[in-house]
């Protein structure tokens, strides 16, 4: 596995932090809390907990990319399992962005749409490269 992939993992760490912080920005831009005012408290709380947990997962993955890039490309079963799963995880996120979110909403928020596709696509490519490279070692 070329050591240069470490560089791509460090960029992936920054991408993860960017996506995590975008969630905070999205709260204000899309007025989630106002929209959630009409649903029962438990549904509102579940939404907020899910959001917080996904942000925590993003920060955790950023730390993984920043400090364990060498291990992620070591070719050990654990590394291949983690990177393989994350490749599927982020690849499916690209599919969701393109196939699940309402086209009119994507059109109305084109900048966010493109940034998410690029970010999720980049993460998919980096994790897939690490998983495939690990399998070849």
């Amino acid at each position, binding site marked *: 596995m070329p050591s240069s992939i470490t560089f791509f993992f460090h960029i992936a760490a920054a991408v993860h932090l960017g996506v995590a912080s975008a969630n905070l920005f999205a709260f204000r831009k899309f007025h989630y809390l106002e929209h959630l005012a009409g649903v029962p408290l438990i549904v509102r709380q579940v939404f907020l907990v*899910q959001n917080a947990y996904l942000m925590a997962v993003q920060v955790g993955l950023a730390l993984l990319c920043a400090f364990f890039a060498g291990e992620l490309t070591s070719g050990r079963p654990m590394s291949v399992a983690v990177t393989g799963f994350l490749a599927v995880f982020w690849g499916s996120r690209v599919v969701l962005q393109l196939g699940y979110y309402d086209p009119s909403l994507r059109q109305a928020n084109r900048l966010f749409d493109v940034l998410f596709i690029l970010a999720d696509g980049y993460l998919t490519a980096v994790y897939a490269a690490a998983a495939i490279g690990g399998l070849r070692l």
Partner: protein
Amino acid sequence: MASLIGQNLPTLVLLAAIGQLVLIVASLAIPRVLGWRAETAKLRPLTRQVFWTYAAYIWATNLSFGLVSLHPAWLLDGSPLAAGVTGFISAYWIGRVGIQFFYFDRSDAPSGPAVRLAEVGLVALFVYLAAVYSAATLFNLGRIGP
């Protein structure tokens, strides 16, 4: 005691894997039990789609923890990566226990013995997962041995 835990960690991690896989199957019923489809229908399309996307990704995250734990040797190999992953999973479940007790307002949640029993089972599972992955982290850091 620490040595005993260390010796049995592979089995405890495997049980944690099974617990998480049972959890992800059982959690498929949560939207129906809590009426999420009807409740989220009141939301605007974007907020509703974000809600379901979040739910799907939390589900996938739990699935990943269950799948990787089916191979205890990978998670307990003493490497920095194993310590980082088990440390993250333990923080994830410790936080989930805290949220259950200190954040969720269950006043308008469904009631009854079955729901109560399910909640007790769920919290017991979260506590077990938090404990096992914390022990696994200490094992990977060399603080407890086999």
